[in-house]
């Protein structure tokens, strides 16, 4: 609980100060980001302990980057549903380096349908984005119970590999020059 409280306090301070909205001087905003980062790391540690394993969180998934998955060819992905109701037919994306041979095995040990998609070049060129992920493995989660989770194993085994996206069509716009 002490570890969780670090994030709780940081969020309370930031809500009180109307933080992360551009209405503060840059050095103050930098301090908000620092407090938030410390709180998130602390909370991640608590969640990792709760799950009883060597768990890692990736905070750059919003720019399709994750140093953990980019450096492995066999790993587990835990998908947790924070809603109190069941969700069905939702999709998960994980950035990876190579596009070949990715297989996704679901919680019941059965290979699930997956697809490897290309990350747009413009995303890979975002200033400050680290890592070399050029693809994402996408798969469908049929069902997650309320406050429940499912663990998926991703491996670049080559057997039962998922599908790769096919370039169907391309074209320059009229303004191409």
């Amino acid at each position, binding site marked *: 609980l002490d570890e969780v409280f670090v994030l709780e306090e940081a969020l309370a301070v930031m809500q009180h100060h109307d933080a992360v909205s551009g209405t503060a*001087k840059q050095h103050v905003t930098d301090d908000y980001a620092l407090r938030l980062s410390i709180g998130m790391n602390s909370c991640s540690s608590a969640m990792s302990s709760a799950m009883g394993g060597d768990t890692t969180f990736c905070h750059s998934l919003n720019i399709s980057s994750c140093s953990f998955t980019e450096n492995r060819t*066999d790993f587990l992905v835990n998908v*947790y549903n924070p*809603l109190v109701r069941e969700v069905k037919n939702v999709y998960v994306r994980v950035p990876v380096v190579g596009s070949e041979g990715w297989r996704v095995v679901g919680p019941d040990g059965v290979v699930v349908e997956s697809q490897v998609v290309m990350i747009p070049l413009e995303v890979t060129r975002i*200033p400050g984005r680290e890592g070399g992920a050029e693809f994402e493995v996408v798969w469908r989660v049929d069902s997650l119970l309320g406050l429940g989770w499912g663990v998926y*194993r991703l491996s670049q085994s080559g057997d039962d590999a998922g599908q790769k*996206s096919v*370039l169907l069509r391309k074209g320059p716009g009229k303004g*191409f020059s």
Partner: protein
Amino acid sequence: REDFTISNDVGLTVTFSGESGLVKGISLDGQTVDLDQNFYFYEGMSGNNSKFEFRASGAYIFRPNVSSTSAAPTMITSNIFSYHVYQGDLLTEVHQVFTDWVSQVVRVYKGRKEVEFEWLVGPVPVGDSIGREIITRYSTNLATSATFQTDANGRELLTRKRDFRPTWDYKVNEPIAGNYYPVNSRIILQDETNGVSLVVLNDRAQGGSSMNDGEVELMLHRRLLFDDAFGVGEALNESAFGEGLVVRGRHWVILGGKDPAPLHRPLAQEIFMDRIISFAPYEESNAINPKIL
């Protein structure tokens, strides 16, 4: 150069112009709506804040320079630079590059009824000393009678009417900003006559409006060069790595009937309380792995 479509197994189809590469229509469950989507910018008002008319657009105040833009935003480009269509059994997506600082992916997933727009904007160019406030606009042929709906902190949906306030006589001083409202989770257009609605859900709170009937616009990014004199003392001109910030985010567009709530309410919950993803190495010899699995 012919128009093309992407679609899925539940009857969702998005039509694109083969000529321009832009979205031009959406259909679901037998309903079809013309849908144009593009990116625009408002020029931010500059000024020294000495008088009302010199008030600058900044962190607290959205104030486009309506005199230079004739109260209409400038389209970033009418024809995108390039597009690529990638198809698979689970999803089909169209990668669109508008300019060197605006690009987007439009996605349709198997079994899902919403269209996903994932936009990437920035660094916003300001080399000409003009601050820019970037919006995306979804234009339809729906007859909306100057009204639209926005949510209040993700709960009650409130009906907004252009250039109107329900409890006082409204005098229009700010034709654009005066019609902007907070959009915390969704903004909705409804055509009562034809029983058609268009819902746009966002992944973060944004400003939004409907400046013309059948249109929805949401503000994605702002880079401004003047302080608005509300105490910050700095312009909203954030930078990283020597450049302006880049933002990436998503909108989900749903085509619904007279009552779209059964579609957008569950989805909004799923967006707000999104799945939390964590990772662990897999090692056959690690006793914890089978336990987790």
